[in-house]
């Protein structure tokens, strides 16, 4: 019996190693190929730093990354503010409106991105040209709007599940001690949900940086975000610079992730709680 037990455990561990290898294979490949000195990304042409050097000399790449960062920060801000407020309302102010609002959030989450994309393109054109709101002809505005929808729903879920897990008595104590609603919100409720808000903000930012489908449709030429630049390169020919930029962005993302993990751990969450918060469950 003892022998059989350890055999099952052993095969599960082997399976885990295989899964991790599978998960990391393409990422490691991209890391290695960012030092490819060849002309095309797929064909190895010797080790070197040419690709990193050409990031500096090619303005198109830097512009694309800059557009992505701008859209990411602004849409994360909007999604975090809207989602946090909605999440607090969902958790603390139950009423007849809650099921309807949840249906809306679920619809936003389950609608395939491609449908959002094809719907937003004519809508932006309509708002910008037919209604005359020139704001919606601006590339960054369009990207921000498109990226904020899904993220708003995600932040609302995360904040809601965090607050539902917390006792309301602290907030009640505050109002029993005559704290006005606004002060109660900023001094009690908000600090309680901070880890969830942070996780939501980071998730929104990453989702925005990652967003290719909606961005490809709503983008205005002149403000092409990074993933759309890469997508067009897939069609015309991938060069090693793309891997180099990805390597830099991966390192930045890992840094941000580590930062959030440290903040969450300070707040006393276990690894499992962090996974639950970040995973939105």
């Amino acid at each position, binding site marked *: 019996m003892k022998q059989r*037990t350890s055999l099952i*455990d052993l095969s*599960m*561990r082997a399976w885990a190693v295989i*899964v*991790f290898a*599978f*998960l*990391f*294979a*393409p*990422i490691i*490949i*991209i890391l290695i*190929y960012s030092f490819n000195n060849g002309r095309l990304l*797929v064909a*190895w042409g010797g080790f070197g730093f040419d690709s990193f050097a050409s990031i500096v000399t090619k303005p198109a790449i830097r512009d694309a990354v800059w557009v992505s960062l701008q859209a990411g920060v602004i849409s994360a801000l909007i999604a975090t503010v809207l989602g946090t*407020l*909605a999440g*607090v*309302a969902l958790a*603390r*102010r139950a009423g007849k*409106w809650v099921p309807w609002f949840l249906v*809306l*959030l679920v*619809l*936003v989450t*389950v*609608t*395939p*991105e*491609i*449908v*959002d994309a*094809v*719907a937003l393109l*004519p*809508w932006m054109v309509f708002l910008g040209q037919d209604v005359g709101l020139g704001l919606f002809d601006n590339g960054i505005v369009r990207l921000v709007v*498109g990226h*904020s929808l899904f993220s708003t*729903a995600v932040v609302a879920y995360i904040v809601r599940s965090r607050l539902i897990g917390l006792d309301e008595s602290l907030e*009640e104590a505050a109002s029993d001690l005559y704290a006005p*609603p606004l002060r109660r919100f900023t001094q009690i409720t908000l600090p309680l949900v901070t880890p969830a808000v942070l996780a939501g903000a980071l998730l929104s930012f990453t989702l925005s940086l990652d967003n*290719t*489908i909606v961005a490809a*449709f709503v983008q205005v030429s002149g403000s092409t975000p990074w*993933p759309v630049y*890469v*997508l067009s390169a*897939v069609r015309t020919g991938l060069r090693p610079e*793309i891997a180099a930029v990805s390597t830099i*962005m991966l390192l930045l*993302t*890992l840094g941000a992730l580590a930062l959030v993990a440290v903040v969450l751990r300070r707040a006393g969450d276990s690894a*499992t709680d*962090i*996974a639950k918060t970040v*995973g939105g*469950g």
Partner: protein
Amino acid sequence: MTTHSTNAPVTMLDTPPARRRPDWLKGPRAALALPAWAWLTAFFVAPVGMVLWFSFGYKPGIFGTHANDRLSFDRYAEALSPTFFQTFQNTLWVGVTGTLICLAISIPFAYWLAVKAANRHRGILLAMVMIPFWTNFLIRTIGWQIILAPEGWFSGLLQATGALDEPLDVMFTRTAVLIGVVYNYLPLMVLPLFVAFDRVILPLREASKDLGAGRWSTFINITLPLAKPGIIVGILLVYIPLMGDYITATVLGGAKGNMAGQMVANQFQTAQNWALGSAMAVVLILTILISAAIAFLVAWLASWPLRARGRLVLGSPK
């Protein structure tokens, strides 16, 4: 929440006294959801509603994209005609197979992560699962393009070891798309399954073993049923975006691995037939909803005999 009037007899069945607060305090907080509501109505409900409206129209001439002066279901008939129907079939195949493969990979893996892995390593292992998830979707897929290339090193390795006689030939096929989507959505299956297995606490599993159940029987009868909500979440998190995916199919699929998302995109970007593209988008959403509903119905019916026989009844039955 019932509204209290001041001169009504005080019944506190629903709220304990300490929780009573003046009504003016309740109002503002419900209003906190209003900005999100307005934002999502303006930029989700309205545009998607417009697509629904377009789908009943038609394409007027070569230069027009859509017209709605005659309304009909003709675009739906067109979207379901044999040429396009095949793509929907293909999408459904990739969606269902991909989700099942993700599930098969994730169940032992997430179980190991939640139950077997050492406690002090769990945080870092979870972070490792999430790293691909936080790397750009498109870049990860391009990584697979490098690995699967017929003239690439992996193909060379397979040939050198004698596993293959000729260069690897999976790029631009349905298999390549399947590898890509399984890879891209795997973390979305692992995380909810991990949380679900993590919730099935040790004492329950030990109790099952103390009562004479083997480890396999414990897993099937205790752990798996209790983890069911997490499994459902995982299936939905993978299946829905997978069905609408168009990036993976564009990078790895080529012409042979066409998916519905590309077809919708083509109608809007290349063919400029917004009416047909809209109808396809609606058909895609309906396909996802109906297939998910059928899957859950089948799973529910299939587990009927199991539930009737093996239900654990606590206390005396009525």
